[in-house]
């Protein structure tokens, strides 16, 4: 049985399928197969296997919110915590729908860095004031509101 966090071994065809899907996940099995010179059933089997073992976590869609008139306020929130409570604070933040990403950093102090979204600045402040600041172990919070996004890409994994 595969243990949690154990790396899954992929062969060269798996890597090529992943590369093709990262570029365009809307392609059919036949289209991917044609590019790679294999049958669509082979592509189907490989994708299903990668879904089963968690290599492909989910299928989603990348929406341009501005195009449909939804202008969220995005912020990077740095939460300074009591080291004894960091894990708990990170867990609580992860449960909030306003929080899209939560990471921990050990630079000079143990910090939690989170990406937060809200409909407007007031809603953002209200979330941080009412839901984040009162958490046990939160010492202080620095928040930077994103005013302009220059680049946003997902990492393209390729075989080394």
């Amino acid at each position: 049985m595969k243990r949690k966090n154990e790396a899954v071994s992929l062969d060269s065809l798996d890597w090529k399928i992943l590369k093709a899907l990262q570029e365009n996940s809307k392609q059919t099995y036949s289209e991917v197969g044609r590019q790679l010179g294999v049958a669509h059933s082979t592509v189907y089997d490989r994708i299903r296997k990668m879904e089963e073992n968690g290599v492909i976590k989910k299928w989603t869609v990348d929406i341009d919110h501005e195009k449909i008139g939804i202008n969220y306020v995005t912020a990077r929130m740095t939460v300074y915590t009591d080291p004894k409570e960091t894990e708990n604070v990170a867990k609580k933040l992860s449960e909030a729908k306003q929080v899209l990403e939560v990471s921990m950093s050990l630079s000079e102090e143990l910090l939690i860095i989170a990406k937060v979204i809200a409909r407007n600045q007031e809603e953002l402040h209200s979330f941080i004031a009412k839901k984040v600041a009162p958490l046990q172990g939160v010492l202080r919070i620095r928040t930077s509101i994103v005013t302009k996004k220059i680049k946003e890409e997902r990492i393209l994994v390729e075989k080394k």
Partner: protein
Amino acid sequence: MTPTSSTRILRTLPRENAFYFFTSAGNYTGQRAMSLEEFVTKIREISTESLEFHFYRGDFEKWAAEVLEDSELTRRIKAVKLLEPVGNNLRDQLDFTVSKRLEELKSAE
């Protein structure tokens, strides 16, 4: 003012109802007040930047009304706005107003 209502206003609050001091949207100073008495202490210590941020957003009067449920303190904080104080003048005005109310409540207990 009955002793019961004074005691209620002066109570120590649960963490989620404390007043958390920010300097701007999302920037928490790490200072909080869990009672009216502690609020007076913090007014004397906290940066004027934080006092101005909360005062002109109406956060102090909102906390007095919705959390402490002290309509008299709410009215008096609102009245300070007419003076449009800033900086240490704001600190002094708030300190004077809230300290006076705290004394009244303590003597009514």
